[in-house]
């Protein structure tokens, strides 16, 4: 597997870090080298949160995502701040927060994670796990569904286990219609 960069960003409390963490744990379990950088605005909640994940079959030098293959854009400010960074990759934006800027180079796919979470699971906090499922689809060749679910159940409170798995499945089976290129 070549060096692949994933950028995930939104506002505090959306589980941006949790999403990157679960995905990475699954990658490590598959024997891949993985790095994740987390940065946020101010010390308190509410600022922007960004996590940069790099996955590679050989040791990773720079952990900085400079040319993301995938960008999970989960809030308006994240999209406007990092959208232009994506050149060859794909922006997976949540229409619940973002009106896409078509002048951007990257191909863009709408992932209505927040609405799916609210409609199917009653709370928007599961949107990040819907995204997990979507990423799972893109990386099917390298990271198995089992390893993703294993990592997911290990990381979420037991009481919320079922709803999280449900959210994952919804993302994993989401029709990515306007997806131009697929692995």
């Amino acid at each position, binding site marked *: 597997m070549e060096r692949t960069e994933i950028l995930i960003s939104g506002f505090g409390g959306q589980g941006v870090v949790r999403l990157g963490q679960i995905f990475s744990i699954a990658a490590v379990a598959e024997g891949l080298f993985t790095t994740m950088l*987390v940065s946020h605005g101010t010390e308190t909640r509410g600022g922007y949160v960004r996590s940069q994940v790099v996955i590679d079959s050989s040791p990773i030098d720079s952990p900085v995502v400079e040319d993301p293959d995938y960008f999970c854009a989960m809030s308006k400010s994240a999209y406007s701040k990092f959208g232009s960074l994506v050149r060859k990759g794909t922006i997976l934006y949540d229409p619940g927060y973002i009106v896409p800027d078509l002048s951007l180079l990257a191909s863009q796919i709408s992932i209505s994670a927040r609405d799916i979470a609210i409609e199917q699971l009653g709370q928007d906090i599961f949107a990040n796990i819907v995204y997990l499922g979507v990423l799972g689809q893109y990386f099917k060749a390298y990271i198995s569904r089992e390893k993703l679910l294993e990592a997911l159940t290990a990381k979420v409170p037991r009481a919320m286990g079922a709803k999280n798995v449900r959210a994952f499945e919804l993302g994993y089976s989401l029709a990515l219609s306007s997806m131009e290129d697929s692995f």
Partner: protein
Amino acid sequence: MKRLFDTGNAAITEGAILAGCKVFAGYPITPATEIAENMSRRLPHENGFYVQAEDELAALHICIGASLGGLKAMTATSGPGYILYADPYGWALGSEIPVVVLNAQRVGPVSGITGAPGQGEFYLSRYPTHGGNFESIVLAPNSVQEAFSLTVEAFYLAERFRMPITILADQIVTDGWESLLVPETEDEIKQMGLRIATRKINQGPEFYPATDEIDVPPVVLGHNTGAACSDWTPTSDGYDTEEVIWQHKHAYRLIYKVRNHQDILPHYEEIALDDNPDVILVAYGSPSRVVKSAVRAAREQGLKVGAIRLITLWPFPDKAFERSVKYLSVELNFDGQLVREVQRAMPKGSEVHFLGRCGELPKVTELVEAARTLINNQPLESIQWQREAW
């Protein structure tokens, strides 16, 4: 061997516990707080103690007191706390008491930016306290795995040199997540080249010999050895003295026990230097990861570029800079600190340049372009900003 995906802070905690750390005293500060949190969870399981001190000054003094009683101890902070370590750090240097001090550098000065990386304490880690007449040992990890291994190494060196050892990390290394291998058996520990030293007790009567030898057991109180250690210049049996001759011997020992045993300290890393490159990038800590990617990207574009990645910052490894070449120091500060030591150590006829960023890592593209600019004998862009007035 355990395969984990965790942060530098978690790796540092596991490294310390593997090395035998029994006391962690600290004070919360971003980005080092998680070490304290991990320790408060893990140490009770290892018959160890987590102490939350009233401030950083007390935190390092509490660690020193524990070490003075025979327990291995460690503290961790960032810039604003590191300057409050100056008083106890000096005490541990003068009384030759083993202790491990971690500084997760963030953007300064003052409170600067709390959750972003900086490298503003390069010189302060050499002179973390007043008075001079001592040498310092400072190790700089650039990954979660190395944060683990250098923490184990820091405890090892603290015992053998009986002195404080600084781990100079930065926010990217402590907060960053990476795949991490943790040994579970003695063999695996050896395989990973990890070294662990057990605490010996100085039985006196000579507690402060005027020698440059290491492996002199530290003073440990509570074993009725009649040991004495203080903030004053010590005679060989630990009395306080104001005689210049004893101060001369004390300085000789504090300086040369380190300078005469640099061979056992971790060595710097050379990257793509075999073909005498035109430009050598120099870095430590997280920027060195981007430097490695930049060397590969530059080579792909036909630019003869190499790099030197420092692991032991102090004593500064002059012999790494024997080539006469263009050096480019890449640092997470704007005033340029590592660059001055490269300029001092490099042979005459070479050039030194500086690329400073702060609060964010430089991009691979930026470093490749900087190398190209130097190869074409043009001035670096970063120097222009001096004339820019916003």
